[in-house]
């Protein structure tokens, strides 16, 4: 679904990363781990076509990103930004309906089918009861789910989530990770960033370690997430413990 080939990326006039290559198949979830300022958000924005690549290629469903219009990109890839500062008190329903933009004509207003689709998406994320509430008034976790709902209303083949668990409490983090697994199981390709290697174990099929804009390693969590790779990535000592049932957890060692 998503193919990235020797990508160099960054802001106009400043390259922050290069030589990133990976591909993401249908129904696959990939977690990007990396320190603050490691280039995760910039990489995501480039993949979404919000920043011009500085080199290399990006393909969505076999089509080069450059040859797609904003509208065509939005029909293929959905974006859940890191947090959302709401300025106006749109209802959660209206907010999710904004996800239908790429499927509507320029002068169109969402119709009955769009509203029904938005309701279904809200239902599937378990926040149907919030439909009439203002996005400015729901809790942080609920707003995060509303952002996911808005991206799903785009009906994209690929979903990019930038630190979807950031600033959420433990329960909401688990709920968001559950949603990621469920969505991947429905065939959507998912690329998400996290600060917690445990999240990669819980919800991803593959992991991309990103430091200083370069991909250190790409592979299944159990293979890539090791004490030495985490030490290299974050500069701290971590013990990666195998658990019963093939599960793993990461435990930092405090000095």
């Amino acid at each position: 679904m998503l193919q990235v080939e020797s990508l160099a990326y960054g802001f106009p006039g400043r390259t922050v990363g290069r030589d990133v290559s990976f591909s993401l198949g249908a129904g696959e979830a990939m977690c990007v781990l990396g320190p603050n300022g490691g280039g995760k958000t910039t990489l995501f924005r480039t993949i979404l076509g919000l920043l011009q690549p500085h080199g290399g290629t990006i393909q969505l469903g076999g089509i080069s990103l450059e040859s797609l219009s904003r509208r065509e990109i939005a029909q293929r890839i959905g974006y859940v930004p890191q947090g959302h500062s709401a300025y106006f008190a749109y209802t959660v329903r209206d907010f999710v309906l904004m996800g239908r933009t790429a499927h509507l004509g320029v002068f169109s207003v969402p119709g009955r089918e769009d509203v029904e689709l938005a309701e279904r998406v809200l239902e599937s994320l378990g926040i149907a009861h919030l439909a009439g509430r203002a996005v400015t008034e729901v809790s942080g976790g609920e707003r995060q789910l509303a952002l996911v709902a808005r991206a799903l209303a785009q009906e994209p083949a690929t979903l990019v989530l930038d630190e979807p668990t950031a600033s959420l409490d433990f329960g909401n983090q688990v709920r968001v990770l559950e949603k990621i697994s469920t969505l991947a199981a429905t065939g959507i390709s998912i690329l998400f960033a996290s600060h917690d290697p445990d999240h990669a174990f819980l919800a991803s099929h593959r992991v991309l370690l990103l430091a200083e804009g370069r991909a250190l390693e790409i592979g299944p969590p159990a293979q890539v997430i090791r004490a030495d790779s985490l030490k290299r990535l974050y500069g701290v000592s971590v013990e990666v413990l195998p658990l019963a049932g093939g599960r793993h957890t990461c435990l930092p060692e405090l000095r």
Partner: protein
Amino acid sequence: MNSRALSYVLAAGALVGLTALAFAVGRYPISLAELVSVLVGKSVSANVETVVLQVRGPRVLAALVVGAALAAAGTAYQGMFRNPLVSPDILGVSSGAALGAVLAIFFSQGIIVIQVFAFVGGLVAVGLVYWIGSRLRGHDPLLALVLTGVVIGTLLGSVIALLKYLADPYNQLPAITYWLLGSLAAIAPRDLAAAAPLALAGLAPMLLLRWRVNLLALPDDEARALGVDTRKLRTLVVAAATLMTAAAVAVSGIIGWIGLLIPHAARLLVGPDFGRLLPLAMLLGAAFLLAVDTLCRTIATIEVPPGVLTALIGTPFFLWLFALARRSW
């Protein structure tokens, strides 16, 4: 009936009532029966007919058009710049239009030239602000735009001050001052005939894009990721809102506060959705300016400039709104 529908009905009702009242009161009072007779074409005394059709008719219509246009433009600007404190003044539209008009008065031009200059001045000012603002890289684009608007507005204001200083104190200065304060007293039907099509031309794209405009209230990245060419859409809506502002200002002079206050009040009643907000803001804007103008010509023996009254009403009302709605707009 839900509270949203009730808001429209009440606003429309208030507008009709105020319109009747505006025709009725004044130095030559008109009874409701006389008003109805004129409007349905029955014969009444020549005086009554003149007052209703020649004197008060154009003025009432102008108040409705100008009020609705300023409120619509303000609604568009506020949603688009994600800032409820933004108004047509912020992008230098009003200052630009004012400078154009003052320049025309300074060179002793007639009313038509004054209007053309005001219109061109408004468009040039917003074009300049947009051009400079979009070239200030490395800043938040919206902040750059708004600050550029404030700075350019100040610059235009000092040019206006210079022209006032240089103007002939007996003929030009009173005309300039009068225009800068804003007034609906000297509206001629042909002024309205010139302004109304321009205001409608600005309104049409807003109505057509009424749903899509909502996405401009999102952070730029989000709106683009949802499939909107934000640059193109924002340019189009800015142009439409500026056209409406310039059309209104060219007729009435500078009347502040409406574009800031009315969208606020409307948003409190029906929420931020542009398609629901726009018609209510226009109803409220028309009703508000009509009420203000009617007060202006009746509370004293001389006419009070409406800009003064909107500021007197607007300031405390705005502070109250601000205190009431500080959490969510």
